[in-house]
């Protein structure tokens, strides 16, 4: 059994870890549904509209799970962190309230989209419904992320020993971190979701290389992957520069930058042993360039902060792995487009997919889907643990804001069981929607015959 603080932290981390999976898909996938319907309308291609509806059915499953885990978080905020709510409740109420309206859009129009969709239905209607779902989904991500931004760079209130005074909800919602955080979260959700959808198409193409509907769907997903991948990298760079200016301890922990200095090197990976970094790949001037844009710039190190205010050093690994995985995924998307470009005389999407891509590319895409979600998880672990020891930076520490109720401990098991059950159900239901082969057949189909070099049926 754990003490209430530890239990509260485990339960919150557990819930967020599960929620982020469903939320990322929930934010990204409707964008692709809308894009597919839009293009289907523009070029009169029913295949794309069919893909969109197929994605929509799976999306509805993840929405149901996102709602459950999201509602859990709403409940836990009050149940596990009452002092935090007393402190920050008024300042974060506005985006939480607005989020419910974004969610209305999503829920009402998802019902409309799924129940009125017909293959020969008016394409403008499908497109508009899907666009509103996408708008609602992205808006709720914006609102919720602005709450996280407030926790990192609190604004719009005077938080004193007597309580929270002079609350200005709008200023709190647009705290300094809001811009970089929301943009990075949205773009990375679009980026990761592209791979979730690409995995589905890749699997379908592995099953039937002549499946032109899947080939067109893959092409759309890869367009998104390239575009939003570049966007995610750029917004990540901005986020780094933002941290250097506003949360230097977070950046310093991420980069294992211990002493404030100019011409700071960039450390990749490595081990922390007896007070020194070993086996790290070091790039001279790297950190100064990344954080400030010039090789000689002074970058604040962890030594500028008292030990009790420093984030845990483990975030370095989360950060580095996130970056490496992100670039790996971007490379996959770039590879697809390089092959398309090289074989451009052939032109047609379906031919590119069946014959012009090597056999390994399809299982690689299937593996990329969980990798992309893991990358998002790593990013959030970095974001959340990088804020430690604070729950609201500079104002309240995590350790001071948990409930004292000892009953929280057993809730960890109850909710762990619930989330595992949820995930198992989701997998079973999604498998039923997208082809009900057993896992063994699916595995063999994906990874079997790879040594042949070329994909079958080309």
């Amino acid at each position, binding site marked *: 059994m754990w003490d209430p603080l530890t239990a509260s932290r485990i339960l919150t981390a557990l819930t967020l870890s599960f929620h982020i999976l469903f939320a990322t898909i929930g934010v990204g996938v409707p964008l692709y549904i809308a894009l597919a319907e839009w293009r289907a309308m523009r070029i009169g291609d029913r295949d794309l509209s069919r893909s969109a509806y197929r994605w929509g*059915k799976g999306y*509805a*499953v993840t*929405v*149901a799970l996102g*709602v*459950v885990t999201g*509602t*859990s978080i*709403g*409940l836990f905020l*009050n*149940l596990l962190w*009452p002092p935090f*709510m*007393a402190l920050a*409740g*008024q300042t974060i*109420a*506005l985006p*939480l*309230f*607005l*989020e*419910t*309206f974004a*969610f*209305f*859009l999503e*829920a*009402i*129009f*998802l*019902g*409309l989209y*799924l*129940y*009125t969709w017909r293959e020969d239905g008016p394409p403008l209607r499908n497109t508009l419904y899907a666009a509103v779902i996408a708008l609602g989904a992205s808006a709720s991500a914006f609102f919720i992320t602005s709450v996280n931004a407030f926790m990192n760079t609190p604004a719009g209130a005077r938080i004193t020993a007597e309580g929270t005074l002079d*609350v*200005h*909800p*709008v200023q709190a919602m647009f705290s300094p971190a809001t811009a970089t955080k929301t943009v990075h979260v949205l773009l990375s959700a679009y980026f990761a979701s592209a791979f979730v959808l690409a995995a589905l198409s890749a699997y379908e193409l592995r099953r039937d290389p002549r499946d032109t509907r899947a080939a067109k769907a893959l092409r759309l997903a890869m367009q998104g992957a390239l575009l939003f991948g570049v966007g995610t990298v750029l917004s990540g760079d901005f986020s780094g520069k933002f941290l250097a200016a506003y949360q230097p301890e977070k950046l310093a922990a991420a980069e294992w930058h211990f002493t404030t200095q100019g011409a700071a090197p960039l450390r990749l990976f490595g081990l922390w042993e007896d007070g020194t970094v070993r086996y790290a790949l070091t790039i001279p001037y790297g950190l100064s360039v990344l954080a400030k844009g010039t090789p000689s710039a002074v970058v604040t190190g962890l030594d500028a902060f008292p030990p009790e205010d420093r984030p845990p050093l483990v975030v370095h690994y989360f950060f580095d792995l996130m970056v490496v995985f992100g670039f790996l995924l971007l490379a996959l998307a770039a590879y697809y487009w390089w092959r398309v470009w090289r074989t451009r005389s052939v032109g047609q999407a379906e031919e590119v997919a069946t014959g012009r891509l090597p056999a390994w590319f399809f299982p690689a895409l299937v593996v990329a889907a969980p990798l992309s979600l893991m990358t998002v998880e790593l990013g959030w672990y970095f974001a959340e643990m990088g804020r430690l020891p604070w729950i609201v930076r500079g104002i309240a520490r995590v350790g001071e804001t948990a409930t004292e109720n000892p009953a929280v401990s057993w809730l960890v098991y109850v909710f762990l069981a*619930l989330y595992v059950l*949820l995930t198992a*159900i989701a997998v*079973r*239901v999604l498998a*039923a*929607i997208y082809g*009900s082969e057993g896992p063994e057949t699916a595995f063999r189909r994906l990874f079997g015959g790879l040594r042949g070099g070329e994909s079958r049926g080309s």
Partner: protein
Amino acid sequence: MPEQALPVIWYVLWVVLWVVYFVLDSKTLGLGTLFPFLARNEREEAALQEAVGPFWDGDEVWLITAGGATFAAFPLTYAVMFSALYVPFFLLLFALFYRAVGLEFMSKVKDPGWHNAWRWAFTVASFLVILLLGVAFANLFYGLDFDASGNKTTLFTLLNPYGILGGLTFVTLALLSGTIWGAFKVSGELEKRLEGYAHTLWVVALALFSIYMVATANRASHLLANYNQVPVLYVIPALALLLLLLVKPLLSRGAQLGAWLATSGTIALLLVTGFVGLFPNMLYSRTAPEASITAYQAAASPLTQTVMLGVALALVPVVIGYQFWAYKKFSERKIDVEEAKGYGA
């Protein structure tokens, strides 16, 4: 704007959000509770699923919005309500989860065991949601058990006779709402069967409603103060009763939508009756009335309430408009049992 106006406006808005949620979700919860007893085969199940499928998630958002509004506009109410009602709220969270997953997933996998398990999960969870909400709100009107030193409400103090009676009244009204809504949506033999259920349920609902009203007058007399001060307010419970009495003749004449609206009116006015009696309290303490929390005490800062009010006034009508439009769109024709889409994979 006078200083005291904002909390009052927000109190009204708060009531509206809860009422809209109760009215809209009652039909899905009622149909869900009776689901295995109403449908005789998979086609009929699909038709019943389609009768509520496009709406339930949009309806449930009203619950989240009502919770969000409590948190945003009356933080103190939210905090105390949570500590007093946290066991029912946890059970509610689980019940809402099984309701959603049961309804959405039962037909997704072709496996009898799976189907059966989720069908019963849907049924039991639907019943629990409406029962828990009914008991919670009856207790809200009846008064909770807390004083200046903190919460003393437990699950057992909530399960008092008045709370249980209130819970059962809301359950029965939801069953009535669900069967009438189902009859309005589907056609054929299933429609007739639903109408038959509705006629029987109406008798039970009328009886429970009447007993609940008598119990309120006798056991929760603090609720009568506002009524005795402004007697014209007695119109509200009277109208609730009148609408409930109208349900049966409307149903007999085949005016299914009218009967559903009348049932919904009863549910709405039953809640309004309680809230009018409660005002200006939001949380009434039965054991220490002086510790009760009023809307004025619980209100967030005027700036916060003003900003939130702007948001609510701009967006609530938009949501109602779209939802009304969606309802209208799906009510253009009846669901044919043979062609129902349901929730199949």
